[in-house]
């Protein structure tokens, strides 16, 4: 059951200061309304993972690890690999995170990122089959939030995409007679097949202002957010409105335009770090 969350206490003086600055089209960290905070991306951050990335977005820190395993395909897609996305909001990341299974916010974040990758087919699942109908690669993508400084979704999305782009597939020997697959993780045979890249851009509404990439404090006074997933070929591949407020049609259109304008530079930064950025092949 979903329950109205307790409001986090933010000193009224701080809230007023944020609003006053917005009227002058400024934010407390001196950014413009449509500017992202500085982004740092380090790939192959976790040696034991098949692919990984660490992302720092402002003060938010997130690590994504990708692990590959052999398993059975889903019954309705017998000739495709499987992508599973999970997110953990670990207690060390914020005073507001409690230990326990993922809460509705962690689940929502994981599912939004999952959908943005899955529907657009960013990872070419058809190329992850080992024995058709029986054995496929399972791609476990785990998002680990280390420090909550606001806008966890975009930070996670950048980390997820970067991690997938550097993920290597281990050598797998398939015994067609016994149906067994032996994996040798000391040898890597290929990169994960990526058809195109995706990144999310989150915009918050405060009063009549739309601001991109909200900080933790800005998130306390925002009552509505909209996250738009954009692909490397300029398509909209996911949208999620969250928060207890509402948006006019104009707000939505404006937010989508901002996202379409800003996504390319984020994707470019990922490419610069990773060294490759696939665009959609047909």
């Amino acid at each position, binding site marked *: *059951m*979903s*329950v*109205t969350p*307790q*409001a986090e206490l933010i000193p009224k003086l701080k809230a007023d200061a944020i609003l006053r600055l917005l009227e002058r089209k400024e934010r407390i960290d001196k950014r413009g309304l449509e500017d992202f905070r500085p982004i740092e991306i380090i790939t192959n951050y976790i040696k034991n993972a098949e692919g990984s990335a660490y992302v720092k977005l402002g003060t938010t820190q997130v690590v994504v690890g990708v692990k590959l395993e052999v398993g059975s395909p889903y019954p*309705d*897609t*017998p000739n495709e690999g499987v992508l599973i996305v999970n997110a953990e909001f670990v207690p060390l990341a914020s005073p507001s995170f409690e230990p326990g299974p993922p809460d*509705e*916010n962690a*689940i*929502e974040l*994981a*599912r939004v990122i999952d*959908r943005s990758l899955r*529907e*657009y087919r960013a990872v070419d699942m058809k190329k992850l089959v080992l024995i058709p109908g029986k054995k496929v690669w399972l791609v476990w993508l785990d998002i680990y939030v280390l420090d909550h400084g606001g806008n966890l979704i975009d930070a996670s999305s950048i980390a997820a995409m970067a991690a997938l782009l550097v993920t290597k597939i281990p050598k797998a020997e398939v015994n067609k007679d016994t149906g067994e697959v032996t994996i040798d993780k000391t040898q890597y045979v290929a990169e994960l097949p990526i058809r195109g890249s995706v990144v999310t851009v989150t915009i918050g509404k405060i009063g009549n202002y739309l601001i991109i990439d909200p900080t933790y404090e800005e998130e306390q006074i925002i009552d509505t957010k*909209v996250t738009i997933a954009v*692909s490397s070929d*300029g*398509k*909209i*591949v*996911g*949208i*999620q*409105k*969250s*928060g*207890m*407020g*509402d*948006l*006019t*049609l104009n*707000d*939505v*259109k404006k937010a*989508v*335009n901002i996202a*379409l304008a800003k996504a390319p530079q984020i994707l470019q930064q990922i490419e610069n770090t990773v060294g490759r950025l696939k665009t959609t092949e047909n």
Partner: protein
Amino acid sequence: MTKSYEKPKLMSEDGKRHDGRLPEDLRPIKMEVGILKNASGSALVEYGGTKVIAAVYGPREAQPKHISIPTRAIIRCRYHMAPFSTHERKSPAPSRREIELSKVIREALEPAIISELYPKASIDVFIEVLNADGGTRTAGVTAAALALADAGIPMRDLVAGIAVGKVEGVLVLDLDELEDMYGEADMPIAAMPGKGVITLLQLNGVLTPEEFEEALQLAWKGLKKIYELQKEALKKRYTELSIES
């Protein structure tokens, strides 16, 4: 014998959908208010084969006290699918999807409810999907809004929900399950049509920016129709009785 997972044909050459509808047609919609005796407010809504019941309890004291908010009522919302509502039996335990949708639906209703009127109280909204055939969360929001009005809880406006999608390249209104599964995009949307604001918006799939704008327009048309049906359903009980001697 293996099941065929081939994609069925969803659009015919003459522009009709697999169930004969035109792209802008809603399925047959049924709405009934006040169907449960125990709940403060309730409603049954059907979008074609999708059947959902919503019930509202409250405002009542929030339990346990520490989840209450001193300046307003809290909204507790549960979206749940009955085990027999889907093709394959669904386990009664809440799935990640139900957890996400409970949050998304609560957030779709929050802007409509004047919750500052009932500090420390709790308004509980329960949505049960009895039969799923696409559009369960949007039918759920529509039913929940009716149930809230039935309970007499003051609202800024009713909330109406509908899903728009893309099927074989064509934008269509009110996706059913088949179209949702095999289509290219599914966009559920809910709004307070009188106030002109959107309270629920998700996209699952791929749309170009132009298609997105078109989809929004198409959705808005559908939402206005749902809104009118909601008003009729709320008034129905009283207009029928007026004729009684």
